[in-house]
């Protein structure tokens, strides 16, 4: 089985995000970018499937700016076998919307014929949580979202999903789209020898036009604003004082 893992280049989760002065989005110039953490989990899961003899080949794919090739190299260094970069924007500030990404991925799936697509449940930059679901709809494949456990058995997969109030286990028919949640696994490090090997692994470069997909935005960002700054705290001397203060501010 071939596993396709879409990975997104996003602002590193450790970076303190700054909103651009004009409110049009987040400032990404000279900012550390990394692989979306949920996608790292998807790559790790794919590698584990391969190590368990359930997958033969792992193909990582990224849709975005040319610099996303770094993200793909990271996937290759972790253990993916080859990568496809679909250049769909020039400006690092351009975010390709989930529907456009899903349409491109559908074409990639058509060309690659994977038995499984493993993607992150959402990207930490805009938290859309939509690409996997849209891809499933476009392909007419079954889907298992928010996976915290996954086992693949021949023509079906068993997925434990993290839902409100607990866990739900479902069985889906393969081929399938699985979107992964935080607790599925802990992604491995890319060892130095694997970083070196990744340089030699194939990375194909395509464009959105190659797949005939129009990536023009359908959504308009009206405004981006910083969260309200946290007010300064105070030290209280006793539980009584704490209760009184909470009453004073009307919290209880």
């Amino acid at each position, binding site marked *: 089985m071939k596993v396709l893992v879409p990975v997104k280049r996003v602002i590193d989760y450790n970076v303190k995000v700054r909103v651009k002065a004009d409110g049009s989005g987040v400032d990404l110039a000279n900012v550390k970018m990394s692989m979306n953490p949920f996608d790292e989990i998807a790559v790790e899961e794919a590698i584990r499937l391969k190590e368990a003899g359930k997958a033969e080949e792992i193909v990582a794919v990224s849709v975005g700016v040319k610099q996303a090739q770094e993200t793909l190299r990271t996937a290759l260094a972790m253990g993916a076998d080859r990568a496809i970069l679909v250049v769909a924007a020039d400006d690092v500030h351009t975010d390709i919307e989930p529907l456009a990404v899903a349409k491109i991925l559908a074409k990639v799936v058509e060309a690659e014929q994977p038995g499984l697509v493993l993607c992150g449940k959402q990207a930490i930059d805009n938290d859309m949580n939509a690409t996997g679901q849209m891809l499933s709809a476009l392909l007419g494949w079954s889907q298992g979202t928010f996976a915290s456990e996954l086992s693949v058995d021949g023509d079906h997969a068993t997925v434990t999903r993290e839902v409100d109030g607990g866990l739900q286990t479902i069985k889906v028919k393969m081929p399938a789209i699985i979107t992964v949640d935080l607790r599925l696994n802990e992604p491995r490090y890319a*060892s130095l020898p694997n970083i070196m090997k990744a340089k030699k692994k194939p990375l194909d470069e395509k464009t959105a036009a190659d797949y005939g997909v129009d990536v023009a935005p359908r959504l308009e960002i009206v405004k981006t604003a910083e969260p309200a700054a946290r007010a*300064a705290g105070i030290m209280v001397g006793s539980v009584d004082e704490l209760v009184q203060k909470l009453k004073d501010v009307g919290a209880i």
Partner: protein
Amino acid sequence: MSTHSPFDSATQSPVFFDESLRMLRDQIRRFVETEIKPHADAWEAEGATPRALLRKIGDLGFFGIRYPEALGGSDLDQRATVIWAEELGRSTYSGVAITALVHTDMASVHIYNAGNDAQRAEWIPRCISGEAISAVAVTEPGAGSDVKGIATRARRDGDHYILNGAKMFITNGVLADVYCVAAKTDPEARPSQSVTMFLVEKGTPGFTVSRALDKHGWRSSDTAELRFDNARIPAANILGREGGGFYEIMKNFQNERLVLGAMCMGECQAALELTVAYLRDRKAFGAPLWDKQAIRQRLAMLSARVESCRQFIYATAARAAAGEEVVREVSMIKALAGELVNEVMYDCVQFHGGMGFMRESTIERMARDARVQSIGGGATEVMLEEVAKRM
């Protein structure tokens, strides 16, 4: 605290580091954040960095940065080494950092650079995996800066050498498996021709660790005094040529100085980052202390000096990697960085107020750790003599 800050703009620049090197930095940084920082207080208390950690580093290939692929390494150059040293320095636990850096860049390098094929094949793969940890023993109770003044003697006896003497301040001295030891083989020869390096295995009869030393800083690094009392070393364990030791030591110093300089820069970056964060948070006289120009301008100037020293290091690493002669530059770097890191720590402690003097603050440990940077691996004054000779 953020693991990526404005201080990182040069570390991310493709002008200095290509994609794989940036990836290497990311991986080392993640390793430091998850495998070192949460655990290292215990190692500070124990006085050594555990072998289990060193094995994990070995598994990830970081000990093999400079060694050829045939021996299990990744065949990278000084630029990768600078990243390795800088990121370890940035851990805030320089005792852990020096444990690893002595192994990769000050000790095992002797085996690789001077050793023959058999010695390399026996030791380098094990040094890369972390199965064997190395130490280098040049300094003695009676001779440090003056390497030619060492008194340890190696006398030929058939197909062995008999070693007698003592070695002082040896990093990894207690826990290492293999030691690269400098001894005088021909005291009558010119000083530069009198020293030979030997490969000495732990457990060699007559070779003992006299004591573990109790240090001001680098407390998670074990440092020892060693004793050679008629220790019999097979003649096959000579590293390089008899009488060639002084030259080998001097040659390896080039890399060592670059590494210590880079380590200092990592220490500076971490100290500045955490002090700025502290000052943004700490309020006095009605506002965050960061609003005081007297404070922030001092830190701004320090950050400018750190940035210039760091980019000097990056540029020198790139030149060394291209095969250029950089003795003058690495001596400058060692002198500059070893002093600068202490200035940075002084001010960072100062701006932490009373907290900077408390054991519970990170900056207190960092200030102690930094002190040795102007002494070990070539004291500032000795480095400046090297620079002055080339003026």
